[in-house]
């Protein structure tokens, strides 16, 4: 199927600013889906609120644009009720890890089969450039006009610690790697997290004097390196890209099938009060 067929052309043009990284994530995601050859009817995309979250409106899958921070909770209900569906959950950095941080760690812990994508532009883009839990110390934003003293999460470390069975990171500059990691994350049976460093030239870029969208992409190229590279040993400040975790773990919906089997076995036992129970 051609990439175009995955898109709802009726709803274009999109709302993103020129140079915004979120459109590049959409591109990478659709290439990954096309390569796997998924049917549009088997995919459900659930997003929250933010510039990033608008991605759901533009794709011709079953799509749900929900409320800020809660996309994973909605996705959990959909997946649990129809485990055969493929769940893709794109989120902004604020969406996923500020207001939605609790849902994020619990979804990772449960290991229900779905793909969480953190479109990390280190800022609240939609509301005009306030700092997020991923902005990091020393960054500027409309709510940290004298510099930010909040420290950032490391999405990868957080996801690993919370129990995600697949964890990857890349950037919008690395389009091929993005499609590749997203593809592997979607195929992975379990909870997968892909952090995609994305540029917001309108807010984070301007506020932190990072130049144009092109400059910001160059910045991703220069400040990241493949996992375990020599460059990383020389310069520990480089951010690693690649797949950090990819392991087999019991998947939640499959585990629940076992619960159903166990519950369905007819039990004849006496409860504490001595009443017989037949169910």
């Amino acid at each position, binding site marked *: 199927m051609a990439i175009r067929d995955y898109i*709802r052309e*009726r*709803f274009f043009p999109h709302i993103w600013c020129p140079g915004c990284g979120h459109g590049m994530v959409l591109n990478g995601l659709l290439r990954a889906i096309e390569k796997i050859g998924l049917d*549009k*009817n*088997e995919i*459900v995309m*659930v997003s929250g609120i933010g510039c990033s979250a608008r991605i*759901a*409106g533009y794709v*011709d*899958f*079953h*799509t*749900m*644009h*929900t*409320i800020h921070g*809660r996309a994973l*909770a*909605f*996705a*959990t*209900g*959909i997946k*649990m*009720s*129809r485990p*055969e*569906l493929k769940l893709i959950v794109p989120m902004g950095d604020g969406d996923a890890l500020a207001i939605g941080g*609790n*849902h994020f760690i*619990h979804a990772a812990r449960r290991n229900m089969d779905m793909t969480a994508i953190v479109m990390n532009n280190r800022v609240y883009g939609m509301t005009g450039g306030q700092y997020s839990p991923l902005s990091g110390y020393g960054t500027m934003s409309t709510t940290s006009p004298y510099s930010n003293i909040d420290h950032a999460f490391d999405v990868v470390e957080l996801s690993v610690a919370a129990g995600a069975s697949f964890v990857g990171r890349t950037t919008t500059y690395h389009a091929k790697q993005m499609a590749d990691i997203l593809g592997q994350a979607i195929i992975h049976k379990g909870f997968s997290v892909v952090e995609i460093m994305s540029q917001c030239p309108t807010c984070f870029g301007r506020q932190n004097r990072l130049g144009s969208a092109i400059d910001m992409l160059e910045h991703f190229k220069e400040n990241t390196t493949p996992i375990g590279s020599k460059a990383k040993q020389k310069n520990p400040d480089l951010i690693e890209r690649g797949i950090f975790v990819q392991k087999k773990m019991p998947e939640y919906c499959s585990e*629940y099938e076992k*619960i*159903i089997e*166990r*519950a*369905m076995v007819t039990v004849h036992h006496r409860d504490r009060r001595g009443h017989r129970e037949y*169910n």
Partner: protein
Amino acid sequence: MNENLKFIQGNEVCVEAALYTGLDFFAGYPITPSTEIMEHMAKRLPKIGGKFLQMEDEIASLCAIIGASLTGHKVMTATSGPGFSLMQEALGYAIVAEIPCVIVNVQRGGSSTGIPTHVGQGDVMQARWGTHGDHAIIVMTASNHQDVFAITVDAFNLAETYRTPVILLFDEVVGHMRERIFIPKKGEIPLVERLRASVKRGVDFHPYLPREDGRLPISDFGGVNRHNVTGLAHDMWGFPSDNPQVVHGLIRHLVDKIQNNTHKIAKYKEYYLQDARTILISYGSAARSALHVVENRRSRGEKLGLLELQTLWPFPYYLVQEKCADAKYVVVVEMNMGQILQAVKVSVDRPERVFLANRIDGVFITPTDIRNILRLIEGKGV
């Protein structure tokens, strides 16, 4: 012994009724005095191949059932005041996106964390207006177990009919009390099943274009029609829109589909109203004490009657006006500072004749409490 006869808690009755309607998905977070609902669900659902989830909080619980409803399942969550507060944003989402679901709030006493193991009815107005923005909502309640069963089934039927969340506003007394109940046989109470879109694959599908009768067929996630669901103001494709005409149409549709059908949605019971000079209006467990007072006074020849409301919202203003037209006094009996009292005053022709008999201390309102108010009104002193 009749196997359909049970002696169980109200919370368990609610579970039985939900399963009776075909519910097969529940998500929740423990909170007194509603926890028994989720415990029974955890035990019962897997036995019928249904799904049970204990989520990380009440927000996630409501979000999860909304998601599951979109795949075509009948769904429910249960909570009490603090959890109900957390659910308000997602509740508004389900209203605007028109996703059927049932939310049980077994009310506790007090405000904030309050008195968890005691009774109250302080969430009546929150159920009406807790979520932001203009909207209509269906809120139902019951005073005894047989009615808890019927009203719970009703809640699921209304959720499907109007594609909307329905709130079951029970209280600690009804939830925890044990009482006899006959579980109706399958088929005895009619069930409303989901109205599904019949649009064929490839035909332009308008998920938010109501039929002529106002009903909105739904297409399950995973089915042949793909569409967008959003809490933003949206057009007939479910796509965000800020076109004033579209936004106006959406809000009117959401409000009208419920308000204009108040006469069909409003459930109530009446006792001795024909010739009543004093009418008590009550609901939930408080109505038990009110009925006790009425029957007691009737046996002495006094003309008291009871109007027991089972649908609180949309409020049946016309019904209250009509029933109270000839009453000398109207006394609203509730366990809050007068939340239904206000609606009753708006309904009747002579609001100065409407009084409140209430308790707000977590203690179940007794017939004596009501009698004391009656004596005051009648000028007899307490």
